[in-house]
Each structure stands twice: as C-alpha cells, then as structure tokens.
C-alpha cells in the first residue's frame, strides 16, 4: 500500500492511508512551502492518499 510524492527531482515513497499533509511532513518538507497537485489538479492537503496516488508538490518559495 504505497503512494508517491514528487518534489523537484526527488521522489518519496509513502504509505497510503495518511493525509498528504502528514506525508509531506514525514518527507522532511514543510506543507506551507508546497502545493499538492494530483492528476493535474490542485488538492487540499487533508486528502487521504490512496494506493498508487502520485502527488506532485509544486514549490512555492521564491526570492533572493
């Protein structure tokens, strides 16, 4: 039972059944700095991950 999170050029295998927010934190990322996209659509991070889900995390931080 697993799902995948993709952030820039990194891929994280996570357990299905948890929220995207929890999975993001588990990967050591901040939920405040990304937007989760599933099948080309923005989703809220309370969505429960299902088996085979592929979530792309769009980085939102910019500046310098």
């Amino acid at each position, binding site marked *: 039972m697993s799902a995948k999170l993709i952030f820039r050029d990194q891929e994280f295998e996570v357990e299905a059944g948890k929220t995207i927010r929890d999975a993001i*934190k588990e990967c050591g990322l*901040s*939920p*405040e*700095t*990304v*937007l989760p*996209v599933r099948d080309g*659509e*923005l*989703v*809220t*991070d*309370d*969505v429960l991950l299902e088996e085979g889900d592929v979530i792309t995390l*769009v*980085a*939102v*931080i*910019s*500046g*310098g």
Partner: protein
Amino acid sequence: MKCRKCSAKAVINMRQHKLALCKEHYLEWFLAQTERFIRKYRMFTPEERVLVAVSGGKDSLALWDVLVKLGYQADGLYIGLGIDGGVGYSAQSYEKVRKFVEARPGLHLEVVDVASTYGATIPTAARVTRRGKGKPCSVCGLTKRHIMNRVARDGGYDALATGHNLDDEAAVLFGNTLHWQVGYLARQGPVLPASHEGLARKVKPFCRFYERETAAYALLTGIDYIYEECPYAAGARSIYYKEVLNRLEAERRGAKLQFYLGFLRAREQGVFQSAQEQVQLNTCPTCGQPTAVEGQCAFCRTWDQVRERVAASSV
C-alpha cells in the same frame, strides 16, 4: 475538504483564514481581496496608470493578470539582466513574459535589456566592480531600482507595482527586526510614497497574500511562469528567513500573517515615527534621479566604472 461557499471540492485551504475554497470561488476571492488591499492602502485608482515590474515569476505575472482583470490601466516592464547560470535563466524568464503578453492582446510591455542599454550584463558588472562578495545581487538590486524608477518617471506612470507577497514582506521584516534596523522598519509597508520629485510611488498589492496563494492563482489560471529560481538566489538569507517563518507557520497557523499585520498596526500607530529619517535628496547630474549623496548617484558611478573596466579589459 469542501468549499466554504458552495460545498464543492476545495482546491486550497488557507489555514490562517480558516477558509477552504473551490477553484471558482478561490479565483473570485483572490481578485476581490486584491481590490480590497489596493483601496485600503490607497495604492492607486482606476484613473491612474500603473507600471507592473514583471520577472516571469508567478507573483509578478499573476499581479499583472489580476490588475488587468480588475480593470486597472496596467502596463508591464521587463528588465533583461543577462543572467545565464547554466540554465539560460534570463532567456527563459523573458520567454515566459513574452508568451504571457502574446496570449493577452492589448497589453503593453516595456523591455529594457541591461547589456545593450548600459554596456554589460549584471554578472559581468558585478565581476568587474567586485561588488557583492562574488554575488551580483547588490548590483542587480541597484540597477533594477534605477530602471524601474526611470521607466515609471519617463512613461508618466502614477505608480510602480511589484509582486511582493506576504512571505517576502515577512522575511524582510524578520531580517530587519533581527538586526533592529529601525530606519528600514520605518520605511517598510504596502506603499512607499513618492517622497521626492522624480521618485515613483511604489506599491505592493499582493502584500497580504501568502506565497502559496499567489502560486495557486497562477496554477489555477494557467499562467506559465518560471519555476526555476535565479541561480544566484541559492543560499540567500531571505530564503532562509522564509523557511524559518514557514516552520513556525506549520505549527502555529497564521503566525506569518499576525507578524506582518501586527507590524503594520504598530507602524500606523507611529511606533517607528522617530526613526523616519528626513534625508535631504539631491539630483544626480548624470541621470537626473534623486540621490542621497552629492554628485553622481550610486547607479551612475557603478555603471561608469563598469564601462571603463569592460573597455580596459577588451583592449
């Protein structure tokens, strides 16, 4: 999670507002909020002309898109910095801006290419003047500020708008507070008035949106923006401050918003009034822009030096 307004599936949850919205209602909310901020802080009116500084990034392109949708007279300004960084950064960012304009007939874009106008790219200028400890950010900031002000003044614009969001503002505020730079604190705000003849009024209509909200607007409206960061931004202090604030936000929702709004309230109450410097500004004899020093302004001095050194090295 459902949309607060219609119960459809939400696409974004703004924890600091306890507000989740679907695509349709989020886009509606985003436009209405921008309009509210413009009026609240008296940034500009529909009768005034606004110059939007666009970089090809999400914030500035989203800002231009929103201002046009709200019916404001907004033109764009793109500054070609000549930054490659192995990824063709400036070329890519210009392409995003060009496509944005192409898809919206009637928009007017001013383009200033730094190398062809002033004689060198930003990285070359930084290298030959040895400003900024190996990074071109100092020369870049100085040059962009000068060009933005010049184009705004020459074009008769009433205001110069930038896409700074709340994360940008909170990071600057955090840095200034950490070092107790009260002079900078006194000047930070949604509007920097045109305090001197020849200086454009600077406004930040997105200053109360979180960065993820402007990104969500760009994604939902299909704005194609440059995802890549400026190659020189890696390790920038402002990005580190944003990370620190976002860690705080993850545990304490609304922390960034409270920090920034609390500061604005304190500023309005005059907390920083005594730190407001009354600087006597002079006029630069070369470019005619206001400057705090006597004689040439920092921009003209720097670029005269750049051209001299570039010419000397090519002999």
